[in-house]
């Protein structure tokens, strides 16, 4: 928990620092300044759990398989295979507080959902279940939807990338 308080602090400080600078206030920064840096934080709460949180009961599919619906725009190692799950970081890593978003269709209910592809960071690459699907992913100059970027950049532990989450943040339709 401590680590994420720190991450939140970091972003708060980072925002404060940037109100007087142009660097964070550009075409990308517009989003940030309009809403506060916190809106780039799809992480609402991070809590430690004794086990990886499984997928929701009304879902179908195998989160250890690249075919699983939430992974429609992922690019990296699936945290499900790395000691975590689609929404849980493996032990000893730190979720990236900022990240990029994709939209995937859940075949069970036919709805589109906004998926947050937070990276889990601070350890060398997991190396298990590499999955690259890229649906709706954009070039790196459109970072809010770019999966070629290492999103560990906002973490305390550094930019080393371990694996990727695919977290349901809400319906897109």
């Amino acid at each position, binding site marked *: 928990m401590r680590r994420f308080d720190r991450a*939140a602090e970091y972003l708060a400080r980072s925002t404060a620092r940037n109100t007087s600078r142009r660097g964070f206030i550009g075409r990308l920064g517009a*989003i940030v300044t309009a*809403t*506060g840096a*916190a*809106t780039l*934080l*799809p*992480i*609402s*709460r*991070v*809590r*430690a*759990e004794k*086990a*990886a*949180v499984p997928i*929701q009961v*009304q*879902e179908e599919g195998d989160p250890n398989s690249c075919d699983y619906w939430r992974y429609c*725009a992922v690019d990296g190692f699936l945290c499900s295979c*790395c*000691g*975590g*799950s689609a*929404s*849980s*970081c*493996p*032990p*000893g*890593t730190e*979720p990236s507080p900022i990240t990029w*978003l*994709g*939209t995937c269709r859940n075949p069970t*209910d*036919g*709805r589109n*959902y*906004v998926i947050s592809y*937070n990276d889990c960071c601070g350890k*060398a690459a997991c*190396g*298990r*279940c590499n999955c690259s699907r890229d649906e*709706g*992913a*954009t070039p790196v100059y459109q970072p*809010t*939807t770019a999966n070629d970027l290492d999103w560990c950049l906002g973490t305390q532990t550094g930019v080393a990338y371990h694996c990727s*989450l695919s*977290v*349901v*943040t*809400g*319906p*897109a*339709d």
Partner: protein
Amino acid sequence: MYADRLKGLPLFMAALGLLVSSADARPAKKAAPPKVPVLATEDVTLVELKDRMPPHWVVVNDVVFTHLIDGRSYIVDADSGTYLGTVPGGHSHVGVQFTPDASTLLIPATFFSRGSRGERTDVITWFGLKDLMPGAEVVIPPKRVQALPLLSSIPLTDDGRFMLIYNFTPEQTMTVVDAAAKTLVGEFETPGCALAHMTGPRSFMMQCADGSMQSGALAEDGKITLGATTPPLFEREDPASDKPVRIASSRWLFITFSGAVAEVDNATGTPTPGARWKLTAAGEEAWRPGGLQPYAYHAPSGLLYVLMHEGGPGTHKHPGTEIWVFDVAAKKRVARLPLETPSTAVSISNDADPLLYTALFGSGTLVVRRPSDAAILRKVEGLGSDITLIQAPPVAPAAATAP
């Protein structure tokens, strides 16, 4: 704290037409009115492991021979075959040492300031099992031996108080770290001798270039003094492996490349040779032990598991095609278990109802077996590149536990 502010985020972004536009790019397919409830918004969570390592969890070490600076250990639940997580090593990764209560992993590691070049830093880092995060760190002299992994190059005293690190520069010394105070005690010369095989709370034996054994002792402050030496116990033509087997607090089996066994006891502080016997019977001379971790001893049953293969001199690293099981007290083979896949490492859990583990260097696969017949219970695949050593945690809490 961000939960409320974030509730409207997806909607906001959809209104912005920017972040979620990828959905629009796909053919809009009108879904039938869904009968299932909308999926809930999820929190990002972080998995915690247990306070202590259960007997059937196991640490699998990967030296990553082609990317030696990125060695690591994987933690696996061998009962379920589940991959639980990883702890980082460094250049020429050996393995971990468990604290006696199995709550913490101590990992010696070597780093360079510029990847594979630049200033070298050697450290010991404490990783709590529960969160696998790097905790305390002690910087040690940058002299740790860089070799194929040997657990006797990084031993912890039985009570967890001191860690010993064998150095080879080619000067031979031993670094001592106070694992309770988390401080460096010092570096001590051990000329001509290598490794430290613990033989009591504060004593150990070293193997020397001429085939002799050297005893050593740690004072209460961790300082090392060297003691008695034996005459050479082994011929140069058939040296004892540098991977001996501890069968009791002060007693070790030293096993030669050809499979000759010599017991040495350091209970008195003077290494004392004991029984000598052979792994092979008459007619079995073509069989030899081999691999990177050829021996596993199961204390509760007194059984020794050995990876054996057919081969001549110079095959001491060849994978085993069979596991031979010996009753150490009786000095007698009790089983001969063929393996469907050759293996370079064998290990066994330390509880009364054990699991047997094997792995082949380069396979990335841990095989979990029934000890009685080596039958495969399950396989855990995708464990990196180059599995070297498989480590089962201690089971019974040791007499003293380090803070």
